[in-house]
């Protein structure tokens, strides 16, 4: 099967891989909306969505009612509703840009997946091969470059709505995202300073970061969250702000902006914004996991190689690339899903900031902290790597 796949023409391989990734990321982004409802319900002490039940499935003895209780079918119900309900376009808006905005929202959110390695396997020589759609050296830079385009959709939606609240939401979104983009980028620079030793070809590849975290030895096997806790924290805070999640959901902030940039949007166009937000969240937490939490390595100081070595005692299958690939992908996905849960968990814990607090935090606290952090690690790494 493996040989068959690699003997296919290159473009077929690329299309197949791309479709496989889309087939995973799309449902995750969609299921997040359901998970959000469920998690918020649990935290608020209520059962949450548990009614939808397609005809006939309720008669399956144990599984049917259980799936109904979990609200699994609400995914379909929500999707169907958002697709088929009336989708009004207000009369006084610029229709072209109004419809363009949600489309623009979804493109960068899903494009960034290209740069994210989501697993690895070992080739015949025992070298680690990351599973990634485009294994480019610009890796993280590509993610930042493309994902920051997402803010255009918010501005465009706010402006094209031709209404005050969405406009304010769009303006606030642009100001917020710029403020946090800076500290986000600065907080990951120490990681790349660490992995790029002088004299060697430099790289910004995320796969290289994970490979670095699976090296033997104390410093090699440590995840970067232990080596650079402040960087990880700053990156996480900036990630919250970048993905417009509470407590930084200033662009939406229904307490003072009704619905923010999407006040005038309904049904499917609205849902596109939300799928984009969740896709952003998925990719963002994926990047956090890759940079600071060891990517597809199961535990700190226990890289994937060691685990495969242990499992190979059980039989031949353990070293098969397919098995290793699935194992690494599920470890990585598990971490990502935990982070998506963490985003929701934080949402129901922290109150929303005021806009001036958001600005103050971005420019007066996070940015100086990330610069200080960068300088500290520059000096420290210079001493260690000498």
């Amino acid at each position, binding site marked *: 099967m493996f040989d068959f796949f690699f003997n296919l023409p290159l473009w077929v391989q690329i299309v197949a891989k791309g479709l496989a990734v889309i087939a995973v990321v799309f449902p995750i982004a969609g299921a997040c909306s359901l998970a959000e409802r469920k*998690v918020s319900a*649990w*935290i*608020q*002490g*209520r*059962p949450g969505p*548990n009614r939808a039940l397609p005809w006939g499935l309720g008669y399956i003895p144990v599984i049917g009612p259980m799936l109904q209780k979990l609200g699994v079918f609400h995914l379909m119900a929500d999707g169907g509703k958002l697709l088929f309900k009336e989708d009004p376009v207000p009369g006084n808006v610029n229709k072209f840009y109004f419809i363009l905005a949600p489309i623009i929202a979804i493109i960068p959110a899903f494009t960034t997946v290209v740069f994210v390695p989501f697993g690895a396997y070992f080739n015949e020589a025992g070298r680690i091969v990351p599973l990634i759609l485009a294994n480019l050296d610009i890796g993280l830079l590509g993610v930042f470059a493309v994902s920051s385009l997402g803010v255009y959709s918010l501005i465009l939606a706010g402006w094209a709505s031709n209404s005050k609240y969405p406009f304010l939401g769009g303006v606030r979104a642009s100001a917020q995202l710029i403020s946090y983009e800076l500290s986000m980028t600065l907080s990951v620079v120490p990681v790349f300073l660490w992995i790029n030793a002088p004299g060697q070809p430099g790289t910004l590849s995320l796969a290289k970061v994970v490979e670095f975290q699976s090296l033997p030895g104390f410093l090699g096997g440590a995840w970067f969250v232990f080596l650079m806790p402040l960087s990880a924290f700053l990156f996480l805070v900036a990630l919250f702000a970048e993905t417009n999640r509470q407590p930084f959901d200033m662009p939406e902030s229904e307490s003072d902006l009704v619905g923010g940039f999407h006040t005038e949007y309904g049904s499917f166009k609205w849902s596109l914004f939300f799928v984009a937000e969740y896709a952003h969240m998925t990719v963002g937490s994926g990047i956090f996991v890759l940079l600071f939490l060891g990517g597809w390595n199961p535990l700190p100081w226990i890289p994937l190689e060691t685990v495969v070595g242990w499992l190979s005692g059980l039989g031949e299958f353990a070293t098969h690339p397919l098995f290793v690939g699935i194992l690494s992908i599920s470890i990585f996905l598990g971490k990502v899903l935990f982070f998506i849960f963490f985003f929701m*968990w*934080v949402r*129901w*814990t*922290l109150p929303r900031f005021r806009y001036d607090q958001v600005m103050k935090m971005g420019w007066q606290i996070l940015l100086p902290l990330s610069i200080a952090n960068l300088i500290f690690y520059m000096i420290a790494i210079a001493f260690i790597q000498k």
Partner: protein
Amino acid sequence: MAVIEVERKSLTLVERTYIPAILSGLKTTWKRMLAPNVTLSYPEQRPEIPTGYRGVPTLVKDPNGREKCVSCQLCEFVCPPKAIRITPGEIAPDSPTAHVEKAPQEFEIDMLRCIYCGLCQEVCPEEAIWLQNQYSMTGFTRAEMVNNKEKLYAIGGTLPDNHFKWDKKKSAEEHGNAH
């Protein structure tokens, strides 16, 4: 009045990062998530109705199965939103309850008008109309929301009665000392 000087402690550096507060908040919400639900799944689970609850007004029968209402129309007069309409009727002379003389021929309560004030229950000399614990009266048409006599008795059922006023009146009549 004594003046107490309250010392305002400034936050320590750790407290000013808010991280301990955030972590304890996360702990609280985590515990809340694992705790059992506090809500009811409404149509399956019903809330416990306290005694004396004033729900939908109903008509009740006494333990002998006789309708208590004597169509005196006090409730109809007292009803503030004029939701009650009684058509008085006679009891047939050959009926075993003929000594009561009167019973409603038709008794209608328009639930679209009823305000659940309970004045009908207060005023009823026969304790025939009771606001019981049914609280969700719904229907698809306006006509459905008018409870007729049959429906009122179906919802009301029978309530215990300690007095048996009309039985006493009947036996008194048989012994020749009515009134």
